[in-house]
């Protein structure tokens, strides 16, 4: 029985572990931007520190509403992916240099898990001072009193220039005449096209004068090949998600929900007319990837060169620029019988109502979303889609702006809208209620008008909570 040898060793090891456990609270030390990566300067190959420092010094930062007299720590929660995080850390570092009495503690969480983490923190009363918010979450947070109204700060802030924010961007953070957060980005959905595939088909590129019908006819014509080599005219179908109305339906006078989000209108003639040609594109021409194809492709079919056109948000441009192996550009969304429309959506940051360091939080939030902050974070890095008009030139002038990017700004000040973008608390449930039947329309199990009537029946009860 001696073949169970390590018993004494096990005991000794357990003792040692107990001792370790006693000091196992390594996570408690607050960490500053300087403290990260063993005191090194944040940056790396993508965002060289020296360049960041130079850019930071060249920008005009907003006047402060008054520095805290003694040291204040603010916690800022965002979701940046690993590759972009260093830029945020650079911003934080320079911010702390400008404001020696404010210490920034950053919390970074993957986008997919962000809501889960901070709903738990909200329940526990441990929300950060400043937190990221997707446009679709704002109303739920505001309705429950989680976000602080910022109107007083905005009024006190010299040079705040509320009108500098693009019109669609601010709308998501306004409720009952009050401002509950500041957007940092907002971009329209545009028509992206693959020049190589158009050239191969001998077809002329899309132009801003195109109509939806022209676009869909071209999509059918551009589709060719079979199996794994098939090229699709269009990257995907509309989906019953938050921005369906402005992106696809308004051009035909249709709506998903009414303006108050208390009635579903998707089976009305405008919406049916807008959607029918899209489902024809799938059923009759197989010009959009099937559900299986879409599932198996890890990225949007357009991004991997398998679709000649795609309707994508402006925020798609940076990753396309980084990975696309074909020539591409973007142009205006085509117009329909009722005119030209597209959605513009974006995200922002809010100060939480429970914050104990509101002044410092405002100073940070205001600088991050100021013209200088947006140039530093989004204009100069190629991420684009800043929410302030004054930050757009920095993006458009940079080498990172793709062909046709100038149209983005024009769309934002022209036909792009947040009207009809679902943002009341029932939003996620609406999407879940509509999706199963939408899948069945796509798979041909139910006809379009009948399917849309069923969606209306399924969605209507869900809307009760928006009243």
């Amino acid at each position: 029985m001696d073949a169970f040898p390590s018993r004494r060793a096990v005991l000794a090891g357990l003792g040692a572990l107990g001792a370790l456990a006693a000091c196992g609270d390594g996570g408690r030390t607050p960490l500053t931007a300087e403290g990260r990566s063993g005191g090194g300067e944040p940056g790396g190959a993508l965002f060289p520190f020296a360049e960041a420092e130079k850019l930071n010094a060249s920008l005009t930062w907003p006047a402060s509403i008054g520095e805290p007299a003694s040291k204040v720590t603010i916690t800022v929660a965002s979701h940046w992916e690993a590759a972009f995080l260093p830029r945020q850390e650079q911003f934080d570092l320079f911010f702390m240099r400008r404001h020696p009495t404010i210490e920034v503690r950053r919390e970074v969480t993957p986008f997919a898990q962000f809501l889960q983490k901070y709903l738990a923190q909200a329940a526990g009363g441990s929300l950060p001072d400043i937190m990221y918010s997707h446009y679709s979450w704002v109303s739920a947070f505001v309705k429950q009193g989680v976000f602080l109204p910022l109107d007083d700060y905005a009024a006190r802030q010299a040079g705040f220039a509320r009108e500098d924010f693009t019109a669609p961007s601010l709308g998501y953070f306004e409720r009952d005449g009050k401002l509950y957060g500041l957007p940092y980005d907002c971009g329209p959905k545009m028509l992206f096209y693959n020049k190589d595939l158009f050239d191969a088909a001998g077809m002329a590129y899309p132009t801003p004068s195109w109509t939806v019908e022209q676009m869909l006819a071209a999509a059918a014509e551009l589709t060719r090949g079979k199996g794994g080599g098939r090229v699709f005219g269009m990257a995907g179908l509309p989906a019953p998600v938050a921005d369906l109305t402005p992106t696809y339906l308004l051009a035909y006078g249709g709506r998903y929900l009414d303006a108050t989000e208390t009635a579903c209108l998707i089976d009305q003639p405008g919406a049916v007319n807008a959607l029918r040609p899209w489902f024809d594109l799938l059923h009759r021409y197989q010009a959009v990837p099937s559900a299986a194809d879409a599932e198996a492709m890890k990225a949007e079919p357009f991004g991997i060169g398998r679709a000649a056109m795609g309707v994508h948000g402006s925020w798609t441009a940076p990753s396309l620029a980084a990975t696309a192996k074909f020539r591409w550009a973007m142009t205006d969304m085509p117009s329909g019988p009722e005119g030209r429309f597209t959605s513009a959506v974006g995200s922002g940051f809010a100060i939480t109502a429970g914050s104990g360091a509101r002044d410092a939080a405002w100073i940070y939030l205001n600088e991050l979303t100021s013209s200088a902050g947006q140039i530093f974070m989004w204009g100069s890095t190629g991420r684009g889609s800043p929410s302030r008009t004054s930050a757009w030139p920095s993006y458009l002038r940079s080498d990172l702006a793709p062909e046709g990017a100038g149209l983005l700004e024009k769309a934002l000040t022209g036909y792009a809208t947040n009207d009809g973008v679902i943002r009341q608390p029932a939003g996620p449930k609406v999407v879940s209620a509509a999706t199963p039947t939408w899948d069945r329309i796509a798979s041909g199990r139910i006809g379009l008008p009948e399917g849309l009537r069923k969606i209306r029946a399924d969605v209507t009860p869900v809307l009760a909570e928006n009243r």
Partner: protein
Amino acid sequence: MVAEISPAVAGVARERRRPRDLSRLPAYALLCAGAAMYLLPFLWMVTTALKTADEVLAFPPDFLPSSFAWHNFPEAWTQLPFTRFLLNTVLVTVLAVAGTLVSSIVPAYAFARLPARGRPVLFAAMIGTMMIPAEITLVPQFLLFKELGMVNTYWPLILPAWFGYAYYIFLFRQFFRTIPQELVDAARIDGASHARILWSVMLPLAKPAIAAVTVFSVIGNWNNLLGPLIYLRDQDAYTLALGLSLFQGEHATAYHHMMAVSTLTVMPIVVLFFLAQKAFVRGITLTGLGGR
């Protein structure tokens, strides 16, 4: 007498099979066919780690990269402080696994071998705790650790492990109940206490189960995303699983980087399993006594 570690017997058994070499061919054929299916995800991970960002997205996918992008490994590893994350993960895993083993084995012995009036009720309650979805106790548990001032420390990840997990207790209990009663009775006659019996009779015989639980528990802690996600706030305290998830952005995922770090961090686990699986066979050879 009743049970002995008997490599000699095992050796004899092995010896005896040797002449029937040909009969092993079907077994090997089955194993190889199955292995191909089971190796795929691992190979997929490694080849993805060696692809460039755009190659990852090719569709239909190419299995092999056009050239090996070895630079993905240092690039990905240094994009976040993964060395720090690794050390954090090792600390949490070692402490949690040690706790899990101790605090699951001891109650399991009680549930398996010590009669008491309260046993059925407690056992039912224990099994019951497994049946409430963790998604729903997550928030109350968070509130609890918040009250205890333990948010943003490793305590919420370690402390519960020292008080037994129902799944592992149940597993050990099942194993302890297969051990012949004669062994326990013999030890009782020799005047051994229950602690002694557990230590000297049960544990050596339950070595395969201990190895199994160790492996499960290591993997569970190593890959745990939810706990660190909810409880850890400062990036320097993050674990590997949480760091890995940061390769996923809102709009795109750096699969090549994610798989590079995955490949590196999965290796210790694969090695651990390779070592532990010996315990599944080199366990014990019971001789002399049949079960009933």
